């Protein structure tokens, strides 16, 4: 039973990560914005700015490249993330 639970947890985390990774930054940001309203007074509240900044980072095929983090689209997304 415990083994099944561990496997289910790993699969859930992997599915969430895949969905997060595939989503465009704009979709992720609007999702975080909606979450923020609900979680403002919860334990997650203080972490929302960090989550928003992570959501603004592009995850495309060139995500790991040093040249990809400073594009205008990223700056605009970061500015939106900083509003949260």
């Amino acid at each position, binding site marked *: 039973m415990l*083994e099944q639970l561990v496997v289910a947890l790993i699969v859930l985390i*992997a599915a969430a990560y895949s969905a997060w990774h595939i989503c465009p930054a704009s979709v992720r940001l609007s999702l975080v914005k909606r979450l923020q309203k609900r979680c403002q007074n919860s334990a997650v509240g203080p972490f929302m700015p960090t989550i928003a900044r992570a959501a603004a980072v592009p*995850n*495309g095929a*060139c995500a790991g490249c040093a040249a990809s983090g400073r*594009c205008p689209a990223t700056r605009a997304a970061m500015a939106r993330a900083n509003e949260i």
Partner: protein
Amino acid sequence: MTAATSTVDAPRRVALLGNPNCGKTALFNLLTGSRQKVANYAGVTVERKEGRVLSPAGHSYRVLDLPGAYSLNADSADEAVTRDVLLGRLEDEDRPELLVCVTDATNLRLNLRLVLEVRQLGIPMVLALNMSDLAARRGIKVDTEKLSKLLGVPVVNTVGVQRNGAEALLATLDQMDLAALAERAPAWETPSLEDVTRTHRRVRRILAEVLDAPDTDSRYDEKIDRVIMHPVFGLLILAVVLLLMFQAVFSWAAVPMGVIEAGTGWLGEWVSGLMSDGPLRSLLVDGIIAGVGSVLIFLPQIVILFAFILALEDSGYLPRAAFLLDRFMGKVGLSGRSFIPLLSSFACAIPGIMATRVISNSRDRLTTIMIAPLMTCSARLPVYALLIGAFIPQQTVAGLFNLQGLVLFGLYVFGIVSAMFVAWVMQRLGGSLAHHPLMMELPTWRLPNLRNLLLGLYERVKIFMRRVGGIILAMMIVLWALSTYPAAPIGATGPAIDYSYAGMIGHFIQPLFAPLGFSWEICVALVPGMAAREVAVGALATVYAVSGGADEAAELGSLVAQQWSLATALALMVWYVFAPQCLPTLAVIKRETQTWRYPLLAAGYLFGMAWFAAMVTYQLAVALGAG
């Protein structure tokens, strides 16, 4: 926008600007410790990039690396970025307080025009004579004191590729007086023809006073170029260079690939022996080790391919290849400026599409964006390598060439020819097949810099390993779950995977791909391949491992060789030449064209071509007895 004067706490805003390919990015990397891409040709930087540096005197600088420009009179989107940053026209960018105008010390005649134009903006400026080591080796002497006096700005020698090459520059920046910075944005007007002529005259006068250069006719560059740029020998040399590159990808990678394969196999067996049978063991062995291991195995081939590309880039050969191929590009109505974006697309279509900003003609830019996904990106290499390794025998052709390398070369050429065909159709439909002559500054020949080469390779390995440890690992776990659950019902006669979600999805899609000879397992692998193409290889490994057991985890190549026909393998290779399944590429096309119309068009035409070409390949191969 107003400029703020620096305080002890606030970092000073410094912008690096200069002509394309004068070494700005190398200097930027040296100053800030960044690892931005550098190459020995113009147009590598198309956006402003930022880094920080703390000088020995304790001043903090925010350094901007601006795209190369020949003039502030912008001709393309990347040059406009440089002009707008300097003039404080960008809303989210403060105007720089200090400028470092980087010049190629071996080509001052061209570089000084921009210096004189920028000087008129009134922003405090330092002139960096970059590549001063190369200039000294060529016997070029610049009287820096006199040049400084004539221009009215400090002049320092720099070497962007040497560890201490920017020390003098930092010391000079520390001494700069920022009080001279005007409160209002600098005024600039488009120069008239008379202004340009006056600037040229002034450059000639200055150079006559400060420059002592030997007769350029005796330079090695021109002697080498006479052979390399020859319309016949040049093309032959290019073909040999590319053939050698693809031969090496297969020949040199065999040993390290074998080591990784053996390591993955050993790890799978070790984990199997350590754990009792159950879902966790299946997840680790069939999902993670089989899936991720089957992609990781291609790392040596990717490293070898990029080592060649980076060495050719740094030597100055690639722009010459652009000139050789310009004739062919012109025939399909493409501008020579399309070459660099298309070349970048061999690594990944995304930076390639972004690099189209150097193309000033909007129709040419759009055509280049649409064909960039047809260039064989590195994510396709694992798929090609798996299929070639499994189906093409390791034999020598004409006593010289490895057949596997020749097939890989053929697939790359097929991608290029298809791209040219699509460009020709697009330009013809748009009524524009006029040839725009290629105007490009040829860089000087040089031996590839080991630091640049290692940095470039390190970046590629890092990107690949991040993908393997990130999205590929996550998707393998999800795919394992989809291939394992729900379990087969009691009394089921078929393999358990047939009853799983993955089996259901595969069987549902398969009729669409039946004319292409694709099995349902291949159809399952195509779906996660939309996030990243190489995931398809891992997905195949996981699906076969789940259906066949742990023993088959590390032998994907021999497994597909047994289960697929040669016709299916050829059709899948052709499918991947056109394969539209890369969502990030479509997203970046949307971003660059500001409309959904073009990504949808790209996805539609790529899918149509992939399906049609793979279908023709399969049916032809079956008719010839390869089915």
